[in-house]
């Protein structure tokens, strides 16, 4: 049953992405991007990745849409319908990259296999020892904050730097 729900949501996701990309009006594109982010978080929730789904719901469906709308308010809603001369190059690049990645995925282990390499390398150690070593039942939090603490430190610095950069870029000018 959850496979059916997942399949239906994936179809909806692709439709929303196509609408967001091909919309002639930028406001429609931004709102559809918000809906796309929300359906994406639903898909991750159905797949069981609840931490990630929570973050995507607040960030992708909430914050990103508001920021895009704020940017849209200060720029223009229209886009020129003329096609770009680069579109054949773009098609070739996209198809080439997609083909290469698909070629790789055919060599990946069967979807959902609990004995595949990503599932048996170091993650079982985190799952088995998280309660005894860090007193944290949520393995994702303990991996994020304790076992892989360096990544999270640098990533916090990245997001703060982005905020700082945006603050400096958009200092209001007085003419």
């Amino acid at each position, binding site marked *: 049953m959850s496979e059916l729900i997942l399949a239906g949501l994936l179809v909806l996701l*692709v439709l929303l*992405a196509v609408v*967001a*990309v091909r919309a002639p009006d*930028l406001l429609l*594109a*931004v709102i559809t*991007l918000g809906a796309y*982010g929300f359906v*994406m978080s639903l898909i991750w929730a159905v797949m*069981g*990745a609840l931490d*990630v789904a929570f*973050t*995507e719901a607040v*960030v*992708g469906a909430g914050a*990103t849409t508001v920021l*895009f709308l*704020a940017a849209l308010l200060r720029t*223009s809603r229209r*886009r*020129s319908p003329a*096609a770009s001369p*680069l579109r054949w*190059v*773009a*098609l070739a*690049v*996209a*198809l080439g*990259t*997609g083909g290469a*990645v*698909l070629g790789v*995925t*055919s060599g*990946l282990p069967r*979807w959902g*296999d*609990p004995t595949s390499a*990503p*599932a048996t390398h170091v*993650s*079982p150690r*985190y*799952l*088995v020892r998280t*309660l005894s070593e860090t007193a944290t*039942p949520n*393995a*994702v939090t303990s991996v994020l904050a304790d076992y*892989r603490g360096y990544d*999270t430190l640098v*990533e916090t610095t990245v*997001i703060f730097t*982005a*905020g700082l*950069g945006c603050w400096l*870029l958009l200092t209001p000018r007085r003419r």
Partner: protein
Amino acid sequence: MNYPYWVAVGLLMLGLYTMIAHRNLLKKAVGMTIFQTAIILFFLLLAVKRDASLPIVSGADVDPARFMNPLPHALMLTAIVVMVATSGVALAILIRLYARYGSLEEDVIAERVASDEADPA
């Protein structure tokens, strides 16, 4: 067959095509968001195990095959936050470009930059 991966790859191609082929800078930012979320979807598909429950353990006896893989979840949390940071800076640059050159189409901006350099006024 690994059908779910195909959707992630399809979205990846769509995002990449949008970033290159569309001339409007805001559309490029939309394409970038689609591209980034497609990559996160692909990565999370690697973490799924059949009939597994959330990676929240309880009690002492833990069979790792019955829980989802927590490592990709943690890495993708980082990726989502970096996504919003990138979008924020991209939109800030967009706004500056529009305020300076009056348009969000990349060819119009390129023309105006070239004419600015040829004739600094």
